[in-house]
């Protein structure tokens, strides 16, 4: 049986996705598997402290490689490349592998046939054991491409393990934004928890991530973190939920105790207390409706 996959995203960064995902991991009952899909800036491991059991290199798309000895510096490759990933410097073509999308156009236009494709390690994929179950996590090499591909691989591995071991819940901590890694995190998920905060910026970002969920047909619900930092904006978010028919899952207050716990590497389940339990219960209920 396929596990129920719940993905936590936010649009805006820094709203508390990772902290809440760690809390959900601690609160859930029954076997569960966790995954950190924010491969650019992975933090879930700082709270769940996995003991590594497996580590694999991640290879992204093949990228162009120039044989400098044969390059005449003619610049045909540079003129063709639409990603500004290859340019002639000091008479030789040089590839910026962080920008190369591996289309292979430069290989085709090079009159000296001195460009080839090469596989590069673009990151690492890991599996570990936490106090609450196993966890899949990854790290993209800084400056790199293909975060969407790494996210897809990470989710696939976590899901495979869940299916093999009959684990019914998969909890995924997602990346910020609405671009390629977020699309890769949400596609095919069973439910998205959208963690927002009461600010005009966060509400603007929330609307964009909701459009994305709708486009990808992923059911979602909204949780407001640090709701008491602006009661006015929290009311505005609740009003938007009523008006647009978005499901409101719950709200968590701001507390310095919570911040301190996270800074000490502790999961703030006790510090947040009842609002957290109510939020998790709402997620399970809403998730079941879909």
């Amino acid at each position, binding site marked *: 049986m396929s596990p129920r996959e719940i993905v936590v995203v936010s649009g805006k960064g820094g709203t508390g996705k990772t902290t809440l995902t760690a809390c959900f991991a601690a609160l859930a009952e029954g076997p569960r598997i966790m995954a950190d899909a924010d491969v650019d800036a992975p933090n879930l491991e700082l709270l769940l402290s996995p003991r590594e059991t497996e580590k694999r290199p991640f290879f992204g798309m093949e990228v162009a490689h120039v044989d400098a000895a044969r390059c005449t510096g003619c610049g045909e490759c540079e003129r063709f490349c639409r990603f500004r990933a290859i340019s002639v410097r000091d008479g030789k073509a040089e590839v910026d592998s962080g920008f190369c999308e591996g*289309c292979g156009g430069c290989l085709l236009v090079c009159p000296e046939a001195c460009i080839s494709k090469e596989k590069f390690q673009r990151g690492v994929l890991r599996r570990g054991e936490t106090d609450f179950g196993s966890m899949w996590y990854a790290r993209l090499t800084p*400056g790199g491409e293909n975060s969407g591909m790494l996210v897809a691989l990470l989710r696939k591995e976590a899901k495979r393990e869940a299916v093999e071991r009959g684990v019914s819940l998969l909890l995924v901590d997602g990346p910020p934004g609405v671009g390629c890694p977020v699309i890769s995190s949400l596609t095919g998920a069973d439910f998205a928890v959208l963690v927002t*905060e009461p600010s005009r*910026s966060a509400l603007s970002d929330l609307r964009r991530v909701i459009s994305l969920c709708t*486009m990808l047909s992923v059911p979602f619900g909204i949780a407001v973190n640090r709701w008491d930092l602006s009661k006015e904006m929290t009311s505005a978010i609740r009003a938007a939920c009523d008006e647009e028919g978005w499901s409101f899952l719950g709200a968590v207050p701001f507390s310095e105790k919570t911040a301190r716990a996270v800074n000490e590497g502790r999961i703030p389940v006790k510090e947040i207390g009842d609002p957290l339990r109510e939020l998790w219960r709402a997620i399970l209920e809403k998730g079941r409706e879909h």
Partner: protein
Amino acid sequence: MKIAVASGKGGAGKTSIAASLVLAKRGVLAMDLDVEEPNLGILLGCSPGESRPVHQPVAYVEPDLCSGCGRCAQACAYGAIAWFGSGLPVVNESLCHGCGVCPLVCPTGAMREREKVIGEIRSGFVEGAPFLEGRLEVGGVSTVRLIEATIQAGESLHADDWIMDAPPGASCPVSAVLRAADAAILVVEPTPFGLSDVAGVLEVVADMKKPAGIVANKTGMGDLSLDDLCRRFSVEVLARYPFTRSAAEAGARGVCPYRSEETWVWKTESLWRAIERRFS
């Protein structure tokens, strides 16, 4: 001087610091390059002015010219062209990167390209200075292309000083912003998450050999030492902004703390002095 404001971690205060730097100096070009979730305009109180669409090429087949040879499908690195051994190939637009390889290999000129909208560039003014914002079409993945188009639009404005609000993370969108910068300001929350995430961006900055400085934000909320980080990457802390509930509340209302907190005004003025001393 073109300055990128980045952080790795989202919510560290990039946009608040970027907006403060814009408000503290006359004639600075403000650019929001967090094109997936642009918010600089909200904090600057910039009313949206003009908007123009940004396009990217996508491939299509001119059926009358196609001989059904399948070379386009073989050459496509993204699996965006389906071809079943004979007949017309079919392009999946959402997978097409607009790289231009299929028109190059097509022997009959049947593979062509048309322009698809990937987002928009909004422009306006903040207290008389120019403002540009890239805004990605939701559902699209051309983040880097839109960032580059927005930077190009900035070039035509001939401003001496730029403040570029970068996206979170440490991958290609951030690199695209750093590539255009003369120097980088890295906003760090002195917490375990903040320190861990900024290290990735500092690696990219070091690879590109760009000068960089640190701004510690929300000090007091986290008080981890930045000494090791500064030593490891040979950077200095240029300013420290304390966490205050009132600054957080102002930010929530969409008000840049520079406009509501006296501390932010003199901290930002001294940050500009540090930037000029350190980078010019």
